[in-house]
């Protein structure tokens, strides 16, 4: 009898179940545990209290990203709590034997940027981290999800987690993206359709021609925000794009081990005939650049669209929209484009990779940011920073009047001093526009790096397709978000 067709998620799940007892969740083996300074201290305290060790330091890696300043690293950290927290992770890693990429390390960075960059993130793995954007690693066809501090302690102590099998949700994006449209726009459009709780209890699997055409970094952007649609994880089946990205990276398998691993990875994609618990189809040809107007990532519209009116939504959602518009100080019915900005933030685990830097630079090249606008460009890792500097992108940003910083989470979570002031409007390439997320009283619009960079030039929310290209051909070509390049090329005619 033929085996029952299985999805990618089911295959990874099945191959990691250590034990499954009646009445209890499965004990799931964890291949890689990523650790950062904010959610781990209490877990290490718990380990000490129970006299436990870290069971598998070799499957654990730590960095400092959330509360670390993005200013000159030789400056002292003035925030006493942040300083203490950063000292604590270093101490915890030393005591428990965990490799730590800390301040001064050339491979330090946002935990979800450095995992893939170092080749630690590999197809078919189970990956966890005390951070909801762990979903990012799903871009490689890994089952990767965020966990709380109790679960961090569990993984440190046992290298396993107690888990119930998630339901599956197929997200098929058909066709090909139009110029100026990228992965960020796909995910914002998805969440606008299904809502911030639409994926609860499920894991997304992204499929379809538009997904296959995405680069690895674009797939990371996409998977990163799965949690904003309520799904704890989101995956893309591995393919040649995945393998090409991984090959030769520091922790990727080498030689014969590579061939063996690649053969295993090729077995991972969902079998024909496998079924999902839910599914949705999105027409990729029809997507436009997206921007949010409200206080959760599901409150998004095409950049050509208008701010919805409470009268136009279902009665149950009316109060929420009214409160959101009141907080944002926005008028229902007005076009979102043209909205005045105070700050532009380009960075984060969603859009802080080299391709994002290239896209932003391709827009800012030869231009200057609008008067009175603060533009912060924060690379996702020290390696991204070094790469960008080797390409001269830092010079493009600083010449345009933007700030170029050390790597970290920065204004995405506003824990390190980089933040919006009360009442300020910021367009941000990050993942959350919750009230106060980017600084208390701050008002956030989420968008792609292309849209954010275009808006930096004008000082108002801007459809990137309306700007003419300025970057030299070479820069446009390396701007790896193909749609961005195409946008410029098509306008040149």
């Amino acid at each position, binding site marked *: 009898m033929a085996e029952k067709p299985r999805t990618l998620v089911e295959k990874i799940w099945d*191959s990691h179940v*250590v034990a499954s007892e009646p*009445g209890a969740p499965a*004990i799931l*083996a964890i*291949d*890689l545990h990523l650790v950062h300074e*904010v*959610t781990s*201290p*209490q877990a290490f305290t718990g380990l000490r209290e129970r006299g436990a060790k870290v069971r*598998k*330091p*070799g*499957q654990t890696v730590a960095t400092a990203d*959330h509360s670390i300043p993005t200013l000159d690293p030789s400056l002292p950290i003035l*925030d006493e709590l*942040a300083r*203490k*927290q950063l000292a604590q992770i270093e101490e915890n890693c030393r005591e428990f*034997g965990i490799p730590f990429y800390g301040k001064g390390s050339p491979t330090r960075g946002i935990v979800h940027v450095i995992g893939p960059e170092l080749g*630690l993130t*590999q197809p078919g793995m189970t990956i966890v981290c005390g*951070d*909801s954007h*762990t979903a990012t690693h799903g871009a490689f066809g890994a089952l990767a*999800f*965020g*966990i*709380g*501090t*109790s*679960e961090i*302690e*569990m993984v440190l102590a*046992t290298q*396993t987690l107690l888990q*119930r099998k998630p339901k599956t949700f197929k997200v098929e994006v058909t066709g090909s993206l139009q110029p100026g449209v990228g992965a960020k726009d796909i995910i914002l459009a998805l969440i606008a359709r299904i*809502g*911030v*709780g639409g994926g*609860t*209890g499920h894991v997304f699997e992204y499929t379809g021609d538009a997904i296959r055409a995405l680069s690895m970094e674009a797939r990371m952007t996409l998977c990163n925000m799965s*949690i904003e649609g*309520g799904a*704890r994880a989101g995956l893309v089946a591995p393919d040649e794009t995945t393998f090409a990205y991984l090959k030769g990276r520091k*922790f990727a398998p080498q030689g014969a081990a590579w061939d063996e*691993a690649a053969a295993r990875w090729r077995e991972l994609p969902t079998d024909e005939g496998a079924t999902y618990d839910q599914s949705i189809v999105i027409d990729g040809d029809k997507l436009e650049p997206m921007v949010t107007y409200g206080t*959760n990532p599901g409150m998004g519209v095409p950049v050509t669209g208008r701010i919805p009116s409470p009268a136009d939504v279902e009665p*149950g959602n009316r*109060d929420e929209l009214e409160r959101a518009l009141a907080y944002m100080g926005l008028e229902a019915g007005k076009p979102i484009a043209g909205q005045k900005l105070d700050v532009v933030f380009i960075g984060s685990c969603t859009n802080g990779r080299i391709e994002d830097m290239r896209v932003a630079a391709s827009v800012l090249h030869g231009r200057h940011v609008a008067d009175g606008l603060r533009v912060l460009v924060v690379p996702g890792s020290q390696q991204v920073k070094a790469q960008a500097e080797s390409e001269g992108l830092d010079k493009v940003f600083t010449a345009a009047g933007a700030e170029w910083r050390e790597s970290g989470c920065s204004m995405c*979570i*506003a*824990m390190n001093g980089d933040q919006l002031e009360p009442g300020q409007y910021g367009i941000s390439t990050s993942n*959350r526009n*919750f*009230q*106060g*997320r980017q600084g*208390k009283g701050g008002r956030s619009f989420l968008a792609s790096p292309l849209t954010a960079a275009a808006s930096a030039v004008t000082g108002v929310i801007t459809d990137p397709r309306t700007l003419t290209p300025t970057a030299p051909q070479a820069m446009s070509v390396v701007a790896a978000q193909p749609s961005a390049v195409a946008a410029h090329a098509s306008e040149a005619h």
Partner: protein
Amino acid sequence: MPEPFVKTTSRVIPIPRSNIDTDQICPARFLKITDKANLADALFFDWRFTPDGARRVPPSFIDEPHNAGRQILLVGDNFGSGSSREHAPWALRAWGIRAIVSTSFADIFKGNALKNALLPIVVTPERLAALQKLVAANLDGEWTVDLEAQKVTLPGGDTFDFEIDPFARTMILAGTDEIGYVLSRLPAIEAWEAAHPARIDTTHA
């Protein structure tokens, strides 16, 4: 070690809002702590205080004087969306909340809540609407949330049953720690690891 929890009787704090995210429950700037101290003060902080630090007028939900000491929250859909921060359930527990009634909870929040003996009680949209009306009409009515019986008793004696993960229920009723349970299965983990060599070695520089 957590204390066993079986049931509680309390008045209810209604917060008729949907999609209450973890940045509302416990803003990120309170995550710089390395312990669990003082989190009760951080709960719903930006709802309670203006950016200048003044208490809002009128006071926000949990700051209303009659809500002091209440242990049950009645909230809208999708409570706890956003971040994985366990500081959110820690802050709720530190303030005194033991049970939250909603139509749905974000996955990570729900798991974190259960690990802190904070009960996520899921009801249908129809029941939520009925409960909201009930509380509006009788703000001082006492509810009993009984985990052992998986039952909520309303003022006047009406009851409804609720579902909860049976394993989490057992752990909370006994005040037991899940790590102890898994460590007692160590031979099974070692056997699995022997058959599945680690894919990476992060200590190999």
